[in-house]
């Protein structure tokens, strides 16, 4: 066991080793890098959230298929079960269908590919190929067998006929949703389009079970955009179904049910892959030319799954150029959060250079500043005058590094650029304006270091007033550092630390959790979600 594994800094700086939820213990900084240039870690909760988000975006969060109910399609036991749920008079309503529905996809397990053992003394084990195959995600759906009455819609005279029938007068009622053409066959328009979502109508659930899919996962990467993510490959994956109710367990084995299940799942299989992890994008939305100018070596990414107190953690490990990383050395540094991101100077320095250039403030900032100067031309006595200066920050950074802090605050991220300063006006200590500035008015250029405390709160009572243009610049500069993913998730307070010794930074945050509150309504039940921080 690493002798530093129980270390905490003796004087933990505010913002460092802070666990927002207080659930985790932060590992020592030296154990984080494992030889990689960047590592992004995701809790199972975040992966679940991402999977749900992406399924929803693709219209694949709810899958279903229907067939008009005919008694001879099902066994007597099923007919009897239906009778216990629905009175015959309701059964006789036109349009009643049998439906197989899959919903509430849940990531129940994630496994990484086998990791080659790291031999003792081998500081740099060979890393996996970029595709790093062999990972799997277990996704469990809620399987529902329903009776379904599609919602009837009114159409106007000019509306073209699609799936239904129209009356000769051009006005009438037609069922929405897919139209049955033959026994056990549901007709769609045939193209692999995003799922239409759950058809609207009334449902009565006859039985519920699960549909479990063991889906291969793969790291996908767009190397020249410096993005990577983990995707679940659904093509050719067949679920295994399970229902406790023996009657419907038998029904599942029938051709009708199997056809329905296959039709329900076909949009997902046709879609082929769905992102399980957020897209890691250290340079976020920088244009291609800026990325090229960063002159980083080719990006490589691989996956590994590690465990911590909260469960499984997916780690996407990124290297630029020849990797010295060892997957076997990767440890969780989530420390109770949902997301953690480690970035070495090798990555964040060129990214900050490019981001600064993309967001540079090219408009001069004008301010009045106090200056010490003689009270008049012939006097040795000095006082405080006022100088109005115009400061233009440079378009480029010349350095970006993390310096050690000598106080209880964290190590500041120091960026260095140039400033061109010009004296516009000058008032002496007596308030008299000096109109003839002479050589004083000549602009001068010099470096300016700007130190940013990434994770510390301002001291009590302290205020920081940033020029709006400068604030915009910092937002463009730091947002990709705090949030190196593409998805627009709402997050809680950002925590983390910077290490001058490791020349790296670690960012952690958690999703703002949503509480689902059922709200009873006149028809059925609607669900509304209330976000809480």
């Amino acid at each position, binding site marked *: 066991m690493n002798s530093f594994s129980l270390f905490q800094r003796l004087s933990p700086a505010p913002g460092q080793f802070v666990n927002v939820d207080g659930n985790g213990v932060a590992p020592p900084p030296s154990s984080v890098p494992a030889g990689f240039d960047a590592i992004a870690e995701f809790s199972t909760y975040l992966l679940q959230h991402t999977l749900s988000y992406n399924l929803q975006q693709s219209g694949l969060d709810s899958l279903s298929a229907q067939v008009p109910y005919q008694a001879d399609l099902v066994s007597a036991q099923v007919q009897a079960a239906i009778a216990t749920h629905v009175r015959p008079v309701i059964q006789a309503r036109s349009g009643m269908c049998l439906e197989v529905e899959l919903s509430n996809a849940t990531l129940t397990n994630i496994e990484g590919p086998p990791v080659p053992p790291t031999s003792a003394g081998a500081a740099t084990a060979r890393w996996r190929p970029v595709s790093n195959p062999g990972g799997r995600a277990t996704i469990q759906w809620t399987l529902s067998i329903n009776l379904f009455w599609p919602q009837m819609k009114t159409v106007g005279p000019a509306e073209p006929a699609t799936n239904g029938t129209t009356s000769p007068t051009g006005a009438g009622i037609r069922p929405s949703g897919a139209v049955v053409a033959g026994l056990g066959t549901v007709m769609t328009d045939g193209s692999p389009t995003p799922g239409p979502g759950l058809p609207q109508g009334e449902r009565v659930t006859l039985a519920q079970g699960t549909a479990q899919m063991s889906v291969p996962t793969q790291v996908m990467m767009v190397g020249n955009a410096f993005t990577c993510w983990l995707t679940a490959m659904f093509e050719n994956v067949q679920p295994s179904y399970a229902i406790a109710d023996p009657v419907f367990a038998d029904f599942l084995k029938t051709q009708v049910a199997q056809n329905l299940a296959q039709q329900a799942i076909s949009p997902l299989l046709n879609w082929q892959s769905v992102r399980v992890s957020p897209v890691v994008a250290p340079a976020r939305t920088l244009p291609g030319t800026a990325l090229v100018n960063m002159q980083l070596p080719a990006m490589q990414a691989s996956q590994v799954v590690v465990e911590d107190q909260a469960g499984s953690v997916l780690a996407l490990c990124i290297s630029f150029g020849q990797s010295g990383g060892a997957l076997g050395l990767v440890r969780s540094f989530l420390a109770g959060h949902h997301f953690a991101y480690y970035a070495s100077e090798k990555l964040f320095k060129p990214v900050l250079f490019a981001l600064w250039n993309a967001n540079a403030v090219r408009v001069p900032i004008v301010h009045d500043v106090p200056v010490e100067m003689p009270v008049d031309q012939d006097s040795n006595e000095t006082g405080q005058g006022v100088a109005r200066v115009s400061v233009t920050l440079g378009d480029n950074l010349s350095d970006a590094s993390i310096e050690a802090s000598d106080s209880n605050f964290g190590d500041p991220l120091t960026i260095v650029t140039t400033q061109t300063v010009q004296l516009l006006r000058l008032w002496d200590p007596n308030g008299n304006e000096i109109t003839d500035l002479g*050589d004083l008015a000549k602009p001068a250029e010099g470096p300016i270091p700007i130190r940013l405390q990434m994770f510390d709160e301002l001291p009590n009572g302290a205020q920081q007033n940033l020029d709006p243009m400068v604030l915009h610049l910092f937002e463009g500069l730091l947002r990709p550092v705090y949030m190196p993913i593409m998805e627009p998730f709402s997050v809680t307070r950002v925590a983390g630390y910077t290490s001058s010794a490791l020349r790296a930074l670690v960012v952690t945050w958690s999703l703002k959790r949503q509480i689902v509150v059922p709200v009873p309504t006149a028809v059925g039940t609607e669900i509304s979600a209330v976000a809480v921080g």
Partner: protein
Amino acid sequence: MSITKDVSEFLTTTNASSASSVAPVNREMLRREQVLVVERTTRLYEYHRYLADARAWKAGQKGVTIGFEREVQTQAAAALTNAHELATASLHITGQVKQAGELDRTLENIIDGIKATGPVRIEDLWKQTASDPRIRQHFREQGVSDDLFKNLDGTMQKVSGSLFLKEGKLAAEVTTGRGAPRSVLFVRSDNGPPRTMQALFARGRFERMAQTFDAWSVAGLPAVMNTNGVELADVIANGSIQGVQLAARHKRKLEDTGLTTYAGHDPGTIASALILAGFLIYGVGMALALSACPAGSYEHDQSVCTAGRLMMVLGAVVILAGTLFIPGATPVWTQLGWWTLAVPSISGAGAFGWLIT
């Protein structure tokens, strides 16, 4: 006083400053700060010795306990505090004597001496100073033990260079044997109407820097120096910042990666030793100068006064040697010193995580 002939010729060519031209200083405060300088330097030298022993001991063990590592970190934290206090005391002392005009008089004194004798080798200066029994006695009176003086002497063996005149100003060239020699030109404090914007904004920068040093961390201060014309006070200020920064870097490295077991001949250790040595010589020299320089004071002794001022300049040059050879993150040298005030809306610290929450 017995000064060797070479240095004595140097010393006797100077003029004493008139008492009426010397602005007042708080001698008791200066004395206390000088005691602090020597005391903290002693503690830091002891820490360096402890660190070497700790490394050697760890190298000989198959493994060490967490308690041992924590103890080393505690010692490093104390060393950082000592470095901060040493630097703060040096800044306080320098600020006082700067306002009293003593730093400018020091430069004039040394310039007069070099005009008379020609360029002086730094290593010769030190050798003669260290071998003079009166100077050694003065070091003892200031609290520098023989053991500490021996360490100081050892560090000074790494420094070589010369003091000479360039364009009528005092110049120094210094090397520690690593890399090319570096030169610096010393200038007097700015007086009179500023002629350039750089001069305008340079006024009062030492005082602003000292104030920020007291109130904030040095991580908020860049090195402000123009090696084409630097005030003695700037050298002390930069040495303070860099010295504390080195200690902070060392402490952070211990916290994040643990105690390394290789011997401490890395450039950072050498730079620290030089900066410490420089502060000690500077502080002791100032005590000597302030006691012996004012004409009309009963302690006035011109040769001792000049010896003290020589040690102040020597100390500053050694501090400079240390700061110029710091490895790793290069200090940002700016000629302009506007950083605290030119654009106040972009300086300062604060968490930026709120940008995305």
